[in-house]
């Protein structure tokens, strides 16, 4: 085997290996796309966040506008304090309504933002006041069962 042939093949090998790594990082992974541009921080308090996780998306009208940065328990009033990193291109009015939704029946949970009509926007670092907790399926079922049982009792009399 002549030396130049080896050099060429090793060169080809290294180049396609690096290309495969790039393909994995940019096309398969999220290195290329979902970095938020100069994000700003918003906070929101929820009574119950259900199964919400760090890095879950924040969507408004279905568009991803940010990601959850951290989740902590506020020991003052025992609410969940969710810190969100928002894309700098999007600002939301002061009376924006934050809800915890589920994508699909078994999908991951995300925070949905419904903008209100207030002319002023929330400042970076501000707090979203109007929130709605996650729907906990067990609570929903037990409420339904109890109300069904009451109705059944009322029907007997």
């Amino acid at each position, binding site marked *: *085997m002549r*030396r130049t042939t*080896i*050099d060429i*093949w*090793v060169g*080809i*090998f*290294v180049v*396609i*290996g*690096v290309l*495969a*790594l790039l*393909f*994995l*990082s940019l*096309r*398969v*992974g*999220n*290195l*290329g*796309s*979902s970095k938020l541009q100069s994000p700003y921080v918003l906070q929101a308090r929820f009574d119950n966040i259900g199964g919400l996780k760090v*890095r879950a*998306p924040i969507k408004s009208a279905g568009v991803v506008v940010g990601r959850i940065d951290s989740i902590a328990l506020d020991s003052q009033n025992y609410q969940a304090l969710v810190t969100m990193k928002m894309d700098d291109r999007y600002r939301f009015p002061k009376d924006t309504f934050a809800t915890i939704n589920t994508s*699909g029946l*078994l999908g991951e949970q995300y925070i949905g933002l419904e903008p209100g009509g207030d002319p002023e926007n929330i400042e970076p670092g501000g707090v979203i006041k109007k929130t709605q907790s996650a729907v906990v399926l067990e609570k929903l079922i037990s409420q339904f069962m109890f109300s069904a049982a009451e109705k059944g009792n009322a029907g007997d009399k």
Partner: protein
Amino acid sequence: MLDGLLSFFSFIGSRTISAVWRLGFAARFFGMLILLSGSSFRRINLTLREIYFSGVMSLIIILVSGLFVGMVLGLQGYDTLARYGSEEALGVLVALSLVRELGPVVAGLLFASRAGSAITAEIGLMKATEQLDAMDMMAVNPIARVVAPRFWGGVISMPLLAALFSAMGVLGGYLVGVVMIGTDSGSFWGQMQASVDFQRDILNGVIKSMVFGIAVSWVAVFEGYDSDATAEGVSRATTRTVVTSSLAILGLDFILTSLMFRG
């Protein structure tokens, strides 16, 4: 009775001592290898030649098996996901299982049996034909001249091969999932990008493949260097390379996975 008991204990004792001795020898050998590996970068042609033999020559088997593993993942994943009505998550399933686990592990196993066994056989045969002793006589250190370039060639080749395996696997999953079965191409790539994290998934997979590369190359050169200088000894060393490095890959994979993806 007493004789039987004594020979039982002495059997266990001698096996333990020889196992510990081999482990210590392997560790000292690794130390020597690192100390003497300067020359494999100063004379880079030696290392390039080994990258050619262990990396380039393994390309075909790695690419073809990556493609087929990805295609099987696509078929099996589609079959299972379709039961839950979430076929669009096929891209996530294929990409995560390849990048995190199958890429490094299967590429490592293939590398161990394709390149590791060849390295062991080559070094073992050099030892059996007294080429290593001849080098020593000529004041050429065989570890620096023969062993270190083969070790570094393997260490450099392995992450690239694992990345190629994963990339081919993703393409195979795409071929089956999107081109053949007809799930939506946009959600295949989109969901994949949304849930494969660069640091958590891809970087950890690369770290895994580096660790496997070091383990396989180390075992291969050590078994070759330590083999009995006979035809039978070389064949036994080659077998031991494949067995030991495959077990090392699987064991290390468990340890690394539990460190990386716990919680």
